[in-house]
């Protein structure tokens, strides 16, 4: 499959139908390919189960540049691509998308396999490409679970705790945060030019979590700002150097949205209004529903 991809990329580069290729490049180890742009030769290109990066995010960077970009997207990455498209942050005609099959992404530590797959891959239901011009090896994509609700299991477990336990759980997680902002920067929909946490014009700007409150504020707001736009691509959890299960925040919003406003999958298409930019006059629940849950 990698060879097919390379051949196609080389062909399109050579005949000038695209200006650059966005794919993964071989690293020092087999296990650390990096996202890279190729403009002439694609000899160093790789595709294997260590290619974790969601390349959609890098499309924003080349949006203003001349020419078309050939980009390889795994099925779950295409959701992010659609979401960015919907928010007009990238344009469809500047991309040639080749959807590639995915067997799940392996977790690496110290360049060694840990034997596990990324959390998102264990509950993956995104087996179809949502947007593409061409597919390569899409049939390798495996179905992990038939139950789309599997991914909410961990959240239900937390919901079952009492408030004190929940608080202690999250304090334990948030206190690990070093505010490297990797979760924010790796997130495709998280795209403000000047983040509220970087903007010195407000005193919300923080470079470090000085108090436990600032830890909470950052993580609540980070997740909230992408609520209804988060495609659950799992990049935040993957990139966190401190292993904070950030997807548990994003997925809580997804779970609430599904339960209260109807099933919604961000990035499934580019027309449907996002749940927080839409409303239903008669059927929307009142906030008091939170208290009635017991």
């Amino acid at each position, binding site marked *: 499959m990698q060879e097919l991809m390379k051949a196609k990329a080389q062909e399109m580069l050579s005949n000038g139908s695209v200006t650059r290729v966005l794919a993964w490049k071989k690293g020092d180890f087999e296990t650390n390919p990096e996202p890279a742009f190729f403009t002439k030769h694609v000899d160093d290109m790789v595709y294997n189960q260590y290619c974790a990066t969601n390349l959609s995010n890098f499309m924003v960077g080349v949006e203003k540049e001349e020419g078309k970009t050939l980009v390889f997207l795994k099925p779950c990455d295409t959701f992010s691509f659609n979401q960015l498209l919907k928010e007009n942050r990238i344009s469809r005609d500047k991309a040639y998308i080749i959807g590639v099959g995915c067997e799940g992404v392996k977790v690496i530590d110290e360049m060694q396999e840990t034997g596990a797959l990324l959390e998102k891959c264990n509950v993956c239901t995104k087996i179809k490409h949502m947007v593409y011009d061409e597919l390569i090896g899409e049939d390798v994509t495996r179905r992990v679970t038939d139950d789309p609700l599997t991914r909410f299991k961990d959240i239900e477990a*937390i*919901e079952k705790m009492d*408030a*004190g*336990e*929940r*608080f*202690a*759980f*999250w304090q334990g997680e948030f206190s690990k945060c070093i505010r490297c902002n990797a979760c924010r920067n790796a997130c495709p929909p998280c795209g403000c030019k000047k983040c*509220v946490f970087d903007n010195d014009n407000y005193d*919300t700007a923080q470079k470090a979590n*000085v*108090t436990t*409150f*600032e830890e*909470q*504020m950052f993580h*609540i*707001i980070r*997740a*909230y700002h992408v*609520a209804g736009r988060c495609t659950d691509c799992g990049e935040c959890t993957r990139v966190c150097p401190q292993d904070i299960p950030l997807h548990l*925040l994003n997925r*809580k*919003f997804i779970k*609430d*949205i599904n339960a*209260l*406003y109807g099933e919604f999958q961000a990035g499934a298409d580019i027309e449907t209004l996002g*749940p*927080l*930019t839409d*409303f239903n*006059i008669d059927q*929307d*629940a*009142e*906030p*008091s*529903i*939170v*208290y009635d*849950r017991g």
Partner: protein
Amino acid sequence: MSVGEFKPLVVAFCCNWCSYAGADLAGTSRLQYPAEVKIIKVPCSCRVNPLFVLRAFQKGADGVIICGCHPGDCHYSTGNYYTRRRITLLYSMLDYLGIEKGRTHLEWVSAAEGVKFATVMNKFVEQVYELGENRRLEDWRCKS
């Protein structure tokens, strides 16, 4: 913070068109509501950014209540429909993180509902008294 009896601080975000007028009416009708409530006027309840709620807690609030026009009565037609969804999700998230539910509230109060405004505030402040000082969403720097 002075040692002594706990006196909470409750921040009420009131929309300019209905709830703030409702508070006014409560005042002119000489209805009593607790002095612990500090009102912040916003153009519409949908102006309340989740950061406002968090920052209120950071700066020392023990409870936050948001008041807006009844659904259907928004001065801007649809503002409070957005509020309804946003704040539901926010409060649900705060609950999920283990913040006491009783510290947050949302109520629709029209310009004619002075009595409702006073009742809601009395009840909410009492609830916050019962919960005691806000510890879980506090910033110690603002307290010493």
